[in-house]
């Protein structure tokens, strides 16, 4: 299963022409890069907030595995033991890396 469902991403890009595609790709990379740091924040409120944001964004752009990981972490919330949280956050960040990589490849295909 790819990090981003290409069919969903294609639907989003179809809403506009090349400029929207390029602008959106760049914005997505920027947002996911920001969230990659924010989900591991020492500030629990900020981390929870970022996880919630990842859930909405990932689902919308077809990063379905990431959306599921974020949903799991978001729903467990404060009940989660610190060690378990660390594991889940590490998994989340690793999946964000995969999404960023997929976005970079998608961006590269525009220029090809």
């Amino acid at each position, binding site marked *: 299963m790819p990090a981003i469902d290409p069919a969903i991403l294609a639907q989003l890009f179809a809403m506009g022409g090349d400029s*929207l595609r390029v602008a959106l790709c760049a914005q*997505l990379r*920027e947002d996911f890069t920001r969230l990659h740091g924010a989900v591991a924040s020492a500030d629990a409120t900020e981390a929870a907030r970022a996880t919630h*944001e990842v*859930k909405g964004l990932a689902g919308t*752009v077809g990063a379905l595995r990431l959306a599921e990981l974020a949903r799991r972490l978001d729903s467990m919330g404060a009940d989660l033991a610190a060690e378990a949280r660390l594991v889940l956050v590490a998994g989340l960040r690793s999946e964000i890396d995969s999404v960023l990589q997929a976005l970079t490849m998608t961006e590269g295909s525009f220029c090809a």
Partner: protein
Amino acid sequence: MTAPASSDTILLIEDTPSLQMIYAAALGRAGFAVAACGTAAEGMAAFRRHKSTVVLLDLMLPDRSGLDVMHDLLAAQPQTRVIVITANGSINKAVEMMRAGAHEFLVKPFDDQRLIAAVENARKALRHSPADPKGPADSSVPAPFIGQSRAMRAVYAKIGSVARSMASVFITGESGTGKELCAEAVHQQSARAAGPFIALNCGAIPVDLLESEVFGHLRGSFTGAISDKLGAAAAADGGTLFLDEICEMDLNLQTKLLRFLQTSTITPVGATKPRKVDVRIICATNRNPLEEVRRGRFREDLYYRLHVVPIHLPPLRERDDDVNEIAERLVVQMAREEGRDFVGIAPRVRDLFRSLPWPGNVRQLINVLRNVVVLHDGPMVTADMLPPDLLGDRPVPVAHNGERPALTLGDLTGRTLAEIERIVIEDALIRHGDSIPRAARELDVSASTLYRKRDAWDKAKRPQ
């Protein structure tokens, strides 16, 4: 996908920039004007500015809870339809939001069809809402006007009142303020709407042809009259005749127009019998008509005959945030026409637009936006896309911006009088964005004189 019936701007408050971009693109593609904001504070400011009746609101915002924002929106404007968007899809949350007054609850992720359907449903609900006797905020705006400023609301009210009568309407306002649109709106709201609307620009027709254009002529009545011609007055029979730039009309023809207004009859050039016509007259000028009367260029009796109900159209710079409402609507429309992706105007450009003097008014704004849409691509209009001459305080195109130095006496030395006249006229035309009436006003000659001169220069250029 149906286009929105009202000019209302959809307010989108979403703090994730890429989601904001996706939702705005989906709405823009469906023909909605969108104002997108990333914080509660920005959202409330935009809400006050646009008085949006449909708001897409993310529940989790960086500076305030979306629930509090919704309370404020509904308190300020109870008919507002708030569509809550959230990644928290719990039933408890949905019930809490609906109880608090949300119109709909969208759980992320949702596709563009779901988003558009929610907005369209909200707009439909607004139209049928008994709780909102006034309907959507812009329901009283006559098409194709855009804008909710106080000054324009007064204009709309006047159009509505005068449309029902037969009184002559005299529209004044700077060039590009929409005088012809105003005349059409009066016609469309009148009992004559099914009849013809005939517009004639008195400043664009050479003086010796104007009489024939207004009243028509019979075949053979003068050299070149090879067939009968129905004039504008006869063509408007049963409808409305709009005479634009009325102050450019020759004094002799003003006398004939007055006779027509007094008797409701026309006599085409070369005819012996007058013909009765039923026409409502609306006229317009960008000059001060009373001043023209004082200077002896406009007949006083004709002025009082025509100036029954005056409507003054305010310049764009005096229309509060209308400039941005117009820009948001037009940029989406132009983007569709030109195959571009623009969905809105960047905040910095909005501020800039509010501060510009817009000497060419809406016509200038349209030209600027067309320039941007043709030469650039979206999704937002940013400051670097604007034509460089926009920041000057002259009408487009700016003449003395370095590319073309100001005219000096040295430029005229050694020239013939005819050459000097041409240089001065062309310089005035450039400085007035090629507007003959404005250049004519500065040079204190009639516009028809300039049209005639330019025609002569064009003819001289053509190969024989």
